[in-house]
């Protein structure tokens, strides 16, 4: 169906109702998202602003908003970074098994199982972390303290409950695994057959073929997948709030019972009994998290957008 009313002007391009409707819908959806995002940012800024001049009483005795937020930000970044160090190699390994090593049937099952991990509510991960993972980590932490105690990460004293930042990071790693695996396996599976066959025909083993073609092809995808996983780990609230026994210190000691808290977990734990300026302080920390997550996701998208140099005709 063409728009015939435009007929008198000859060069009018042909416009189809379907295209017009669809592009309108797409545009509306895009604008809605932007408006929502801007709304959140405005809300956080307005409500968080009073925190800048809040008295120490509203910030648990800290004498400035920076002193209040910085340890939380430190804990957030540390936990998320650790989670990525654990999750990324694992996720890439699983993605490779699914895309290149396992027989087709097995890899499909494996893919479903990993996707299922994404559907588990974070409260359940929290429960799993407290009741299952943490007690089982105690032995390992004692071993680490004894044998690797000279490293600043393992100076101890080892936590007797296992509810350390390392345990929290492990839980976060499991939670970030599905998104990283899902993206990287899609990208690995798209590596042009042409190039994979070129490597194999030169006498590459499967692993050499993967290093020559799959990894270079998927590099930007791997980076952006990690960034998206990082975004998830940064913002995760319930699981960390439940698992971590936090005291608000700044420390690289990963196995002791005094741990830094994270922004999201801190908000979840404090919000219930907060009032007045305390609420503003919490919202301000939320703004910081919002900005950090935004930057991480933005970087991830930017790197992913750069794509694959060279063609795959």
């Amino acid at each position, binding site marked *: 169906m063409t728009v015939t009313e435009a007929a008198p002007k000859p060069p009018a391009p042909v416009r189809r109702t379907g295209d017009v409707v669809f592009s309108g819908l797409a545009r509306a959806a895009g604008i809605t998202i932007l408006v929502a995002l801007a709304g959140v940012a405005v809300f956080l800024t307005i409500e968080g602003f009073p925190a800048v001049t809040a008295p120490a009483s509203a910030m648990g005795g800290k004498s400035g908003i920076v002193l209040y937020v910085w340890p939380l930000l430190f804990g957030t970044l540390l936990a998320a970074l650790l989670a990525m160090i654990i999750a990324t190699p694992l996720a890439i390994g699983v993605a490779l098994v699914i895309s290149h090593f396992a027989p087709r049937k097995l890899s499909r099952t494996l893919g479903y199982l990993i996707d299922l991990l994404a559907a588990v509510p974070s409260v359940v991960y929290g429960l799993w972390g407290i009741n299952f993972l943490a007690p089982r980590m105690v032995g390992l932490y004692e071993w680490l303290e004894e044998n690797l105690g000279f490293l600043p990460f393992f100076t101890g004293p080892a936590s007797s409950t296992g509810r350390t930042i390392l345990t929290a990071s492990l839980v976060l790693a499991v939670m970030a695994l599905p998104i990283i695996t899902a993206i990287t396996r899609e990208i690995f599976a798209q590596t042009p057959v042409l190039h994979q066959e070129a490597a194999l025909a030169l006498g590459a083993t499967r692993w050499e073929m993967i290093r020559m073609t799959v990894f270079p092809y998927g590099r930007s995808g791997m980076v952006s997948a990690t960034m998206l996983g990082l975004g998830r780990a940064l913002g995760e609230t319930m699981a960390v709030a439940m698992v971590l026994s936090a005291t608000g210190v700044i420390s690289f000691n990963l196995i002791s019972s005094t741990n830094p808290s994270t922004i999201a977990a801190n908000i979840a734990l404090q919000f219930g009994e907060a009032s007045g300026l305390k609420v503003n302080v919490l919202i301000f920390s939320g703004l910081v998290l919002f900005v950090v997550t935004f930057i991480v996701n933005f970087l991830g998208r930017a790197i992913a957008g750069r794509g694959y140099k*060279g063609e795959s005709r």
Partner: protein
Amino acid sequence: MAKSIDVSDLDIYYGDFLAVEGVSMTIRARSVTALIGPSGCGKSTFLRSLNRMHEVIPGARVDGKIVIDGQNMYDADVDPVQVRRSVGMVFQRPNPFPTMSIYENVLAGNRLNSKRMPKSEADSIVEKSLKGANLWEEVKNRLNKPGSSLSGGQQQRLCIARAIAVEPQVLLMDEPCSALDPISTSAIEDLIHDLKSDYTIVIVTHNMQQAARVSEDTGFFNLAGAGKPGRLVEMNPTSKIFSNPDEPSTEAYISGRFG
């Protein structure tokens, strides 16, 4: 370096589908053997079985023997990776590695053997292989540019350079000129002519004149009928195939194409 190949009673399958049946032929060393036949008769399939690239496809397998240098390459104790290092392959579509420079593309196969190579040796392999592929003069000043920055014909010659850099015994080519213009095609035909003194070459082509120009022997593949597997109908010296073939179907195919 160059070796002859003896194929006997080769059946090639994709899963349960028998694509090529009962091929027996001898491919002479230091000569060019052309494979011709209608589309879908199994030329590529057969060619890929000569360096065990066929089995890369899930479910694909082969029955029968292919003997090079006294060794059946389908014996249980033969590693397909080793076979592919001594039987090189050039594909229909040029496929240089897009993330590697021209220089690194040429060395890709040598790097796999993963001995640390001194720079001087690497340089000389690159120069020799690119000269061997008639590409040196065109790229010697931009060896660090990506392989994908070349034209299609240059890319295909780069792929040939990459294949001969590891000094294989056999070079397989699947319609290496079908994506190229007449000038690049003639450059590659000249190249095949030069390479034949060192390598055993098997080339699949749809171009009768090309088969007649470059090859010593020609094998004609055909389908026995729709849904039936492809077979080797006739294998003879190229001059005989094109003047006085044994089989009427060869005659029909060739004259149909020649018009």
